[in-house]
């Protein structure tokens, strides 16, 4: 496994340090300080999960805004078979990805899930989310300190007989 | 459309509302006939959920002293019960029409 020594790693180190300082409240400084060892218990982004809308959640989580990119492949159903279990996944060809997040704009709290992607982990994740109603689904990928996003609409209807 | 005649009559009877305000006696009579019809529907194993809930609403309204609403609800419950009884009787043969052969 490539340990994080060598020039590439130090540049990454600085970047992470910068990113984490910017995140202030998140206090994952230990993450930057000891990347070589297992990342310390990075703090749960409490604040970000409290935000109601998408923009505030992204700001609380990353402290910057994202720009759409077709390098972020978001896969979600057109019509959810059930709003409680919506299979959603994202893959990306971007490299040096450090974080992936999902936001469901119409949910009571926009931020649904956020993943910290370590070095050597394939940048991609599949999970099952809840969606309150027809909504925009936004996937955010943090690569090399910049934020990229992809958006898709998922139709959700409530009730029905259960055929 | 021989079958629709009794249905129409049933409908008319169900919706006829008493002219003057209903009193407890009216309610008791209406509730008794509704309950009998509901028991018959249950006996045919073809009870409707709305019959049960309308009957309960009638009782609740009566307990609250609102005999107008209670009597109307009891009458409606009776009509629903009668409709489910009619449904059970007519389906005895009607189901064959849908059968895949």
């Amino acid at each position: 496994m490539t340990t994080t020594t060598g020039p590439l790693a130090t540049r990454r180190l600085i970047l992470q340090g910068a990113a984490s300082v910017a995140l202030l409240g998140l206090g994952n400084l230990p993450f930057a300080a000891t990347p070589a060892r297992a990342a310390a218990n990075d703090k749960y982004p409490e604040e970000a999960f409290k935000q109601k809308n998408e923009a505030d959640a992204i700001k609380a989580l990353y402290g910057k805004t994202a720009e759409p990119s077709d390098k972020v492949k978001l896969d979600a159903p057109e019509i959810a078979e059930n709003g409680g279990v919506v299979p959603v996944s994202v893959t990306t060809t971007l490299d040096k990805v450090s974080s992936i997040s999902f936001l469901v704009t119409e949910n009571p709290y926009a931020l649904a899930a956020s993943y910290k992607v370590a070095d050597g982990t394939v940048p991609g994740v599949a999970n099952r989310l809840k969606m309150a109603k027809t909504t925009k689904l936004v996937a955010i990928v943090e690569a090399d300190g910049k934020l990229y996003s992809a958006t898709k609409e998922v139709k959700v209807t409530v009730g029905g007989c259960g055929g | 459309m021989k079958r629709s005649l009794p249905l129409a009559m049933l409908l008319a009877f169900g919706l006829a509302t008493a002219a003057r305000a209903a009193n407890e006696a009216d309610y008791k009579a209406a509730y008794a006939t509704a309950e009998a019809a509901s028991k018959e529907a249950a006996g045919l194993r073809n009870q409707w959920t709305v019959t049960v809930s309308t009957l309960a609403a009638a009782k609740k309204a009566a307990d609250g002293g609102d005999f107008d609403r209670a009597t109307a609800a009891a009458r409606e419950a009776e009509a629903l019960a009668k409709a489910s009884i009619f449904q059970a009787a007519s389906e005895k043969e009607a189901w064959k029409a849908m059968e895949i052969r």
Partner: protein
Amino acid sequence: MKTRSALLLGSLSAALVAFALTSPRVVAADKVDPVADAKAFQNFFFQKFPDVKHEDFVNGPYSMNADMKRQWQEKEEFPPYEFALDAGKEMFATPFKNGKTYADCFPNGGVGIRQNYPYFDEKEGKVVTLELALNRCREANGEAPYSYVKDEMASLTAYMAFTSRGKPMDIKIPDDPRALAAFENGKRYFYTRRGQMNFSCASCHVQSPGERIRAEVLAPALGILNAMPIYRSEWSGMGTTSRRFVTCNSQTRAVPLEPQSDEYRDVEYFLSYVANGLPISGPGARP
């Protein structure tokens, strides 16, 4: 009160319309012929959906809608009924207080036999379903029976179904007039309209499978029980055949019967027999 009577009017007019709509059909001789019924039943669906592979019918709504099938396949990678399956396997191995286990009650230790249920018990003269047999096994060994609509029963039937996955449904009708009567009674129940909605099982699962009723795509009746018990996202939990029958009834505003009443046992007998040859795919995941 006005809305109630409007509702009543609506339901009665629906009943009238339905009578007019049902196309007159030649009334076949009244001799009960399950073999012919099964063939006609299967051909109806094979012709109505020519490009659905025969064994795919057991996947219910997913055989009718590609987008939903993809969502289902993603769920099947690590299905939500995994926990019920493990619980069922554990329960099957845990002996009763008297030291016996479920394996002692069933042929072949209960493994790989789900496709033969329900069967007609000639001693009792009635249909015996898997859920009934499991509870009878518990009672025979001094244990309290499980509820037919709760998780324990679903876990047990999930495990037994899993051990039969892929095996073709193989329901037998012995040459016994009572068995033919049970089959006919099940068929009648399946086609009989009930509830204020005035629907029969066939109104949804024969006349309009593949179409949507609100958000749900309706499953075809052919093979509809092959995936039982099912984990439904709607219930976010397991559902036995009994639970499915009871909820379907109340959705047409018909008061459900007791689980495992004769009508339910017979309609399960009818639906399983006409699906003979199609593979068992339980436990299933559904919307």
